[in-house]
């Protein structure tokens, strides 16, 4: 009986997801944006094959070489070179790996932790809810970047620490969403039915409630990825994130700051890459939101 109930719930969820996805594919702007995101992901994955040069290869003869269309530029170094003569295009292509990797990993980890905590708080209630909600309240009391900066200062720079510093706060976002949705769902008939036939609490949380709150969760996760990418770039810009010589977009912009008057291209293009990726994610996730959540449609 439980399995039948579960199966029908799963089927229904499946079809809602499918209907939503069909709606999404009808939104032309969102599709173009999603294609842009896919392109960036492909760029990150295929970096070793796409990059025209070694991103770490320094050549002082090419120091601050301008982009191809300017005097002194050449087409094999389209966007010019940085202060160590490294090819900017290749560094941007490799930089996509860091931004996207951190964006994806932080969102996945934070969503996982936040979902479990939110389910527990919303469904179990009582002391569990009390403790989790207080922790969330405290973490929400810190401005995001200040919190991350403080943590990075304590833990030191590096990939693993950036991910941790961001996840420590990020999980509260999905936790709040899941808690709210769980509270709204827990008294619905199908959950009560599962309870009545003796399903365990874990079963109800993971098999009954979770599949039905997937849509808002996916929407939040995609929107948050854009924020995470900007945060990582900001940390790297401040010198607290990825360390040189690694090609991170944020630290490339920081590098370009010193040459604003004589080599504007060093900082401009990596920043443009961040902007385009984040814009594409935001446009695509807005399309997702419109398709998935009629309540949020403007």
């Amino acid at each position, binding site marked *: 009986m439980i399995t039948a109930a579960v199966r029908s719930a799963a089927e229904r969820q499946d079809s809602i997801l499918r209907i939503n996805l069909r709606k999404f594919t009808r939104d032309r702007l969102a599709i173009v944006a999603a294609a842009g995101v896919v392109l960036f992901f492909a760029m990150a994955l295929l970096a070793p094959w796409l990059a025209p040069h070694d991103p770490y290869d320094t050549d002082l003869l090419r120091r601050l070489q301008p982009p191809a269309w300017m005097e002194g530029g050449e087409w094999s170094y389209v966007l010019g070179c940085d202060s160590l003569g490294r090819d900017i295009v290749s560094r941007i292509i490799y930089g996509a790996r860091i931004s996207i990797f951190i964006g994806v990993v932080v969102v996945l980890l934070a969503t996982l932790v936040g979902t479990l905590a939110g389910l527990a708080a919303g469904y179990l209630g009582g002391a569990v809810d009390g403790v989790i909600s207080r922790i969330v309240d*405290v973490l929400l009391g810190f401005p995001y*970047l*200040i919190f991350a*900066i403080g943590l990075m200062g*304590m833990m030191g720079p590096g990939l693993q620490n950036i991910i941790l510093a961001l996840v420590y706060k990020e999980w509260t976002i999905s936790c709040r969403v899941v808690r709210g949705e769980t509270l709204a769902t827990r008294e619905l008939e199908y959950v009560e039915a599962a309870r009545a036939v003796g399903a365990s609490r874990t079963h109800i949380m993971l098999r009954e409630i979770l599949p039905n709150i997937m849509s808002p969760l996916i929407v939040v996760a995609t929107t948050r990825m854009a924020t995470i990418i900007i945060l990582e770039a900001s940390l790297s810009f401040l010198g607290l994130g990825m360390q040189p010589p690694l090609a991170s977009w944020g630290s490339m912009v920081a590098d370009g700051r010193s040459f604003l008057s004589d080599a504007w291209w060093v*900082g*401009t293009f990596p*920043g443009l890459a961040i902007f385009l990726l*984040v814009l594409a994610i935001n446009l695509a996730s807005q399309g997702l939101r419109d398709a998935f959540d009629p309540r949020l449609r403007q």
Partner: protein
Amino acid sequence: MRLGFIVERLLQLIPVLIGISLVVFLMMALTPGDPVEIMLGDQLATAEQKESLRRDMGLDLPVAERFARFVKNALGGDFGRSFFHRRPVAEVIAERLPATIELTIVAMLIALAVAIPLGVLAAVRRGSLIDKAATVISLVGVSMPGFWLGIMLILLFAVHLGWMPVSGRIDYAFEVPRITGMILFDSLVQGRYAAFLNALHHILMPAVTLGLAMAALLMRVTRTSMIEVLQQDYIVFAEAKGLSRARVLVRHALKNALIPTVTVAALETGYLLGGNTIVEMVFGWPGLARVIVEGIYSRDYPLVQAGVLVIAVIYVTVNFAADVLYTLLNPRVKL
């Protein structure tokens, strides 16, 4: 009844504040490295001297006791001495905080000044070209990394056109006796208009950089709530009564539509306070957020700790005020 609500919310604030100080305390307590060694830097000291310094700083006490001491001292405004500035941390913070507050306020004002008219226009002409343009502009604003926007503004308006100063709060030629530490305010009250204009000139680019994403967000909030309000019965009634469109919009609709805008603006102050770190670094703005980042570079932990704590407390307090105001302003919320 209302007083009861405020007191209740104030009481809820206490555990949050304790939690925040605990997190800040742990952030630094768990930092690898011996604070005494960091504080001494290159100075030579005997083992006994180090030991006595450690005792003075209370580092020999159990963690719980150290936390209690930290909270007690912080309540009295004592955050210890800055390793780098070689004077009390509270002094450094008091000196830098006004610059950060000033920048935040101006950024917020710019954001509101851009967001409200655009949001209203987009709502009134829903679906029009203006509406679509506003949506695109707001997405662009949200997607632009602050540090890059700041650098692009410097590149264009300071380096190429030479219209704007690259950094700082005011030219050295001007002297404004300190009252609040907020130069715009101080110069205006003292009638030093040339200094005021000069400071305004300096704050413009940093504030625009900081406020743009906020403007984008607030515009969307204003648009949504305006659309909602315009569909209400009392608006239809006001129009049916024959009141002019402008009067209906401003007197009847806008007043109510702005409640969410103002609330979101206050709730997102934390975003501005965080964004300050970036903007202050890019524009060499001598504020608190920059001091925190510099404190990390120089491993000045007492300063970082106090700075993070002060900003978090400001943020929580503003949120509390926003929450209370929203509840009191909104006639639909019954207490």
